[in-house]
């Protein structure tokens, strides 16, 4: 249920852009209109299938990452639900390490709202989403490394103190 609510917020982001394109499409363009009609039917069937899939997925968690309005491929803001400084600062650091990234920052706009925003601006070579995904993976890798190093250090410590 909560998912539906979250989704409802999204069109606001897309609406201005999509309306502009819609208006520019000529209404009298016959082939397109015909195409349009047919495909809509096709899509409705597809939606039915998707609906079934959705019901299976219904149990899944609420969507926790959202793209904020005004984002472009290389400059985007993401809103994370139920995340804070714990993820935000470390993610900011690791994303900034990516040489393809021009700018990255995070903010918690209001302390009583459980939301954390991340802004990413990249150079042409990559997109903000890719940079975000890479950041998450890199941070996970860093965690792996620290885990390994800690296990090593512990073994060394145990060996040193028992001898």
């Amino acid at each position, binding site marked *: 249920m909560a998912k539906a609510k979250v989704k409802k917020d999204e069109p606001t982001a897309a609406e201005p852009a999509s309306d502009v394109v819609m208006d520019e499409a000529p209404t009298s363009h016959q082939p*397109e209109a015909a195409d349009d009609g047919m495909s809509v039917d096709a899509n409705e069937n597809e939606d039915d299938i998707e609906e079934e899939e959705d019901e299976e997925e219904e149990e899944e*968690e609420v969507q926790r990452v959202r793209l904020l309005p005004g984002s472009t491929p290389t400059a985007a803001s993401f809103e994370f639900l139920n995340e804070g400084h714990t993820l935000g600062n470390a993610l900011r650091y690791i994303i900034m390490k990516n040489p393809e990234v021009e700018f990255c920052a995070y903010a918690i706009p209001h302390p009583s709202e459980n939301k954390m925003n991340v802004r990413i601006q990249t150079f042409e070579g990559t997109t903000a989403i890719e940079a975000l995904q890479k950041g998450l993976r890199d941070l996970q890798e*860093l965690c792996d490394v620290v885990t390994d190093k800690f296990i090593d250090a512990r073994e060394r410590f145990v060996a040193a103190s028992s001898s």
Partner: protein
Amino acid sequence: MDYDPMIMDDAEALGPVVKISQADSVRVKWELSNTDMSFANSLRRVMLAEIPTIAIDLVEIEENSTVLADEFIAHRLGLLPLNAEGVESLLYSRDCDCDGCCEHCSVRLTLHAKCTGDENMHVFARDLVPTGDRINQVLGTPVITDSEGLGPLILKLRPGQEIKLECIAKKGIAKEHAKWAPSAAIGFEYDPHNKLHHLDLWYESDPKAEWPPSEYAAWEEPPQEGEPFDYDAVPNRFYFNVETAGPLPPDVIISEGIKVLQQKLAGLIHELADEGGDGGVNGGGYNGGGPRSPEYGAGAGVDGFNGGGVHNTLWRRRRRESERVGWRRGGDGIWDDAVRGGEQLVVRGTLARRGGGLLTT
């Protein structure tokens, strides 16, 4: 040949380095270096507040003729450290299918004591007895570390007074209530000489005389007399002191902390891969890299006219349709691969949560 970790670590300047300086059953003092403060702090925060443990959450009092109020006793019981070994296979009771609580999501403990002698009687944590089925034989047992094997004092009874109650211990994290914190304290320190001036030390006449040096001061080069301030310097060595309250051994707190951080990341990676198709992250504005929806950018309106434009319009209509009904749209072929990629990553994070079920690997 003697192995000197110092030389090894200095030579290996790439990547983070971990050094343990002291470790026993209660605490681990260790140093994390060659990494950023933001990561070290994330680790501190996650160890402090997000490692799941078990603590008494509900108390049913049957008899209480002590001088202490019911809620006062319930509060004391909540703060007792309980053994959290194996808590990863316990469900959060909000995720359990049961009505209220069961052996999959809780541990029951009972306490019944009556002072029948003529001396005051002390009731300790050892008098709290786990009952019913448990995931393993230690989960939820009160932590007892004193030499007499008594555990913390819960209350005292005068002659004739009685206490009888039943507790339900549940899984939780310290972000919700501090009683679920596995650690008593997590020391976090850097820059023992305050070279970076992150601290502005108050003093009467001489800060050097009035502020005793940290135990780590000997580990780092003291500032030279008249040394100019280094504006580019950033903290690089972080000294942790992880002290357990008993639920988990201190080294497990550290590895569990990293694990929790990884699960957090795995969940997000999974979600981004999952939602990547359309409705998700991209729903707000664009279809990340997908060929179908050039909604933004200068070219979109013009060259999306015959080719992309048709599709574009349809795509938007479909989306509106699905929004109206509140559907969530599934991904397409391209993104299915991404989803699979995501799943792999989830599996790598040792314990992953998806939907209501627990996946362990």
